[in-house]
């Protein structure tokens, strides 16, 4: 699961950095924006079958690879 999420993130951000630093703030570093967020939610839905409504998406809870992995694993 973790690897799949990281693959999606590498694909979206175009950066391998997300694999090396799991506590990297994706929004502050300009790696993710609203557009990429929407893609992330869609990828989670199509690849992993995890449904996260946009209302559920609170930026501060999804801003590092670690937090995203935790969210996905708890789903």
């Amino acid at each position: 699961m973790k690897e799949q999420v990281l693959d999606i993130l590498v694909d979206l951000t175009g950066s391998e950095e997300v694999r090396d630093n799991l506590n990297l703030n994706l929004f502050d570093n300009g790696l993710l924006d609203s557009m990429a967020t929407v893609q992330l939610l869609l990828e989670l839905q199509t690849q992993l079958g995890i449904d996260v409504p946009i209302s559920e998406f609170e930026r501060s809870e999804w801003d590092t690879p670690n937090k995203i992995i935790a969210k996905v694993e708890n789903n």
Partner: protein
Amino acid sequence: MINLQPYQNPLYFGLLILALIPEIICLLMGKRFRWYETIVSLIFLMLTFGGTKIHEGLMLICYIVFESILTFAYLKYRKKDNRGSVFVIAIILSILPLVIVKITPAISGSQSIIGFLGISYLTFKTVGMLMEIRDGIIKEISLFKLLQFLLFFPTISSGPIDRYRRFIGDYDNTPSKEKYLKMLEKAVHYLFLGFLYKFVLAYFFGTVLLPIMSKGSLANGGISWWLVGYTYTYSMDLFFDFAGYSLFAVSISYFMGIETPMNFNRPFISKNIKDFWNRWHMTLSFWFRDYIYMRLVFFMMKRKVVKSRVLLGNIGYFTLFIIMGFWHGLTWYYIVYGLFHACAIIINDAWLRFKKKHQDKIPSNKFTELLAMFTTFNVVCFSFLIFSGFLDKLIFG
């Protein structure tokens, strides 16, 4: 009966502090004095919407009854079924009063009789709730809490725009003593910062300097140094006036143990337009981002309406900023202001993509950062000149 508009004069602040003292003492003892809080809210709502504004008060009541019925009806429906068409109808109905209020002046030249202070901000809150009901995130609503949320008096006139789940989370809990002490500290700080912004700086820029600049530019006509002066003076006035108001609203919320979100985060040091919208009137821009931009992009991406990511994002930006323009009012300068920002953010995005691709060739240092801030500041101030409507006066008299 007297009428007092929020945060306008010393009497309002005096009464507010007096009324809040018992509540502050209770919160310090770790209790929420709910019925007292409710009575204080009702009194302050009556001060704002009573007396000479009683007509607005009645319209507010009608509006609240209408939106409450709509929200409960949609919630009831959503528990059984979830059709897109019903959702769209619910949204159209909920924004209908605001649309009428915005269109009426453009058609008849006079204000709509169904309008009242703060109708826009109540509409943002209600539409947000409907969307979260649609997403299945809001499952239960109690009428009492709905009214507390919509009619929360510190923010009723002009925001900041809070969200139902966040607000109720605060309202249902009482902050611990340590936390509340910290909130009080901030509340006092924000209150005095608000005084500085609104009654010193906004007064200086807006009431003292702006009329001089306005007179000078109109006398000279066309493009003049006076107009440049007007642009920056107006921008400062706009910021300090609205940020001052927002600080009051957040401060009073904190006194009441509610952490209303902040509206401004030093917008004039933004490095680009995107950064600017993450710092300027934040609760509004986040509302537009979450409820319009992201939903629209999600919908279009899922249905594969548009293939290109870039085009998709740009359609999202145009939709967002045109709606924001119309929301400000049906005049050419508000619409142009919206279009201007849509173009600015699209250019900004293109630049960011280019920069990412050529990272190694583009210098990035303290100087380029200052240059970026300087450029953004000037672009933003120019957009405020459009927004001010002053060009309308200058060009069309």
